[in-house]
């Protein structure tokens, strides 16, 4: 995919580019609106207005979004589960920059820094550097000592940490990322305790004094009745 196609893909999928879509690609407002309202998550009218306001704004330029796309792909290269594009990570970064405005300056300043560093060293924008050149720059800002405060590190290290955090959270809260992580909940089911093989793995068991007190899931649909002393009889 060349750079132009990438930008197109990004902006078409982007949740922050409503106005741009309308202006540059001639897509009707109605169609944009429909693509935005896929976010149905129980908003109050006031919250909907706030979301709509953010959707209608565009913070990062297409070049900036393209650089994030490169960076996020280096941070989490695609695998058999999915990619940062499947997870819409760049769109999340654009949205969060508007939702949490204190992200704006650090995120943008980092992009300026990495391009100037790339130009200085390799006479190219970061996105146009060879992969080995990109990694040479990143290797100097990608690591920190977890015993120290990240705030005591130079700005580029802090910036890359923020981008890594947003990339990780964006991927692992997406449909593909949740699947890869192995989270299996948020789904109607019947909890009947820790699986036996897991109990065995940790040498644990359910207390014999307790086991009779827990819900017998085969009786969960039988209406509860008690005797006068509060003993359940159904």
């Amino acid at each position: 995919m060349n750079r132009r196609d990438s930008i197109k893909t990004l902006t078409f999928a982007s949740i922050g580019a409503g106005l741009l879509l309308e202006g540059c690609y001639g897509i009707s407002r109605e169609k944009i609106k429909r693509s935005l309202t896929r976010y149905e998550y129980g908003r109050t009218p006031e919250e909907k207005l706030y979301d709509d306001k953010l959707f209608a704004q565009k913070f990062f330029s297409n070049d900036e979004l393209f650089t994030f796309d490169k960076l996020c792909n280096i941070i989490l290269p695609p695998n058999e589960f999915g990619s940062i594009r499947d997870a819409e990570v760049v769109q999340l970064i654009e949205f969060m920059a508007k939702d949490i405005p204190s992200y704006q300056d650090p995120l943008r300043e980092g992009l300026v820094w990495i391009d100037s560093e790339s130009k200085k060293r390799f006479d190219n924008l970061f996105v146009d550097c060879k992969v080995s050149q990109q990694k040479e720059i990143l290797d100097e800002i990608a690591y920190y000592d977890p015993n120290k405060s990240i705030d005591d590190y130079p700005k580029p290290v802090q910036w890359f940490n923020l981008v890594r955090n947003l990339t990780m959270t964006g991927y692992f809260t997406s449909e593909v990322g949740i699947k890869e992580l192995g989270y299996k909940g948020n789904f109607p089911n019947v909890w009947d305790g820790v699986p036996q093989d897991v109990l065995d793995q940790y040498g644990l068991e359910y207390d014999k004094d307790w086991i009779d007190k827990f819900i017998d899931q085969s009786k969960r649909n039988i209406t509860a009745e008690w005797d006068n002393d509060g003993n359940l009889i159904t």
Partner: protein
Amino acid sequence: MQIKNTAKEYDVIIVGSGAGGGMATKILSEAGLSVAVVEAGPYYDPANPEQMTQLKPAYHSPRRGAGTTRFFGDYDQAYGGWDIDGEPYSQSGDTDFRWFRSRMLGGRTNHWGRISLRFGPDDFKKKSIDGLGEDWPISYNDIKPYYDKVDKLIGVFGTKENIYNEPDGFFLPPPKPRLHELFYVNAARKSNVKVMPSRLSVLTKRLNNERGVCFYCNGCARSCNVYADFSSGSCLIFPAQKSGGQIDLYVNSMVRTVTTNNEGKASGVSFIDKDENKEYKLKGKVVVLAASACSSARILLNSKSKQHPNGLGNSSDLVGRYLHDSTGGDMMAFIPQLINRKTYNEDGVGGMHVYSPWWLDNKNLDFARGYHIEVWGGLGAPSYGTGFNVNSFNKFFGINKAGGYGKSLRDDMKKYYGSTIGLSGRGESIAQKSNYCEIDPNKVDKYGVPVLRFNYNWTDNEIKQAKHMQDTFEEIIHNMGAIPLWGKPGKDANYGLTKPGQIIHEVGTTRMGSNPKNSVVNEYERLHDVSNVYVVDAGPFVSQADKNPTWTILALAMRSSEKIVEEFKKQNF
């Protein structure tokens, strides 16, 4: 259903639709009385798909559930929060009180933790035990029949334990503990800390045909669309409407004052219709305030008249005083044994499956009153923030390098997923006359209603209790081979004691008592000064106990509502 203005005189006007207001609505309407429920927020039904957040994955939110608009995250069902646009509150001196308000039908019952603990016999008579605070004018035996009825009406799981100050009730069976909870059970027992199954108002078993049974999605804070958890709307108000009660709901209607007649008796309420920004009046024979402890105090203090120049029910000058919240302290730890754990659906109910009631005798300690311990952790649903500082736990293995990029981050993510545990203490503070809310003479909200100003300082008892929490948590965490994620807060940080208000158990502002000189309401939660105004939220609490207030709000509201029905029968209104 949502009437704007009426010449009708209701039998009862209920202000607020949370636990207390919901219970009053049910008891009073089912006795055949005509009821107006005046709620400051919008209509809300957990089963309404437009409002529902239950079962939504993080990616249904463009911010992946971040807490930008709702403090506890996008999916938490509380409309409001610590700060509401145009509805400020102020602080005196160095007070830093946090006031959480939820403006919606059902109020905070839509998102609360469902921990449903009865107060025990000692909890009503603490002054007799340690000389601090005040005794309640009622005892456990007075309220026990109502706790029993609340258990059967609403449903709570738990186990009979025969502990004197943790009375048993009519319990549904509890769910089995999760993996990290089993780690907690063993570690706490090593330190002789009692652990028992939780007591939560979640239907693990069918209670009636109106409500569904829990399907273990962990989403109680999102309010259950099959009504398997207790929310005031789904469990009290909707059933009362269904059984044919004469109930008019006024939503987006914020009560400003209780109006009075020439004899000084309540004649109704005045409220602001927030949609129209206009003020209306409703007439009622009885007014029941259930707006939350601080909101009800605010309404009373703002209800000044010739007969009540100091505010309604405030001849004692005690409305707003004895405000107290639960204490809180937390510790979070990493359990190295749980790295790279097998994943499975561990959601369970929306809260912990085991907890520790207060297990010590304060006679042997340097502080008064106890706390219970809540446990959290496990294979939780990813949401905004998941994956931040993904491999900072490397430090616990002596690896002083974190961050990086590439495939290894995916491995680190899975390695540390579900490997943490958290312990939270929630304890009893001592009600102080000097801790109070009052009307700020210089500030009004966007509707022109004078706002509250808070005055609140913890005492040594709470600070020492917080230290005890931290020491206990450290020991238990050590017992399970886990490592605390951060250093223990010291004296300069009050040993991690939360800010007053932060635990959202604020109570005590319209204290109950038999003497009108040192209390605001009588044992049936009726104002001493006015014979037809009741307060059925947590305002009447004399003391907080190391429990959560909701089950006691419900039991007291039921008892007081039955009293109101009795008085109606005697034609006393």
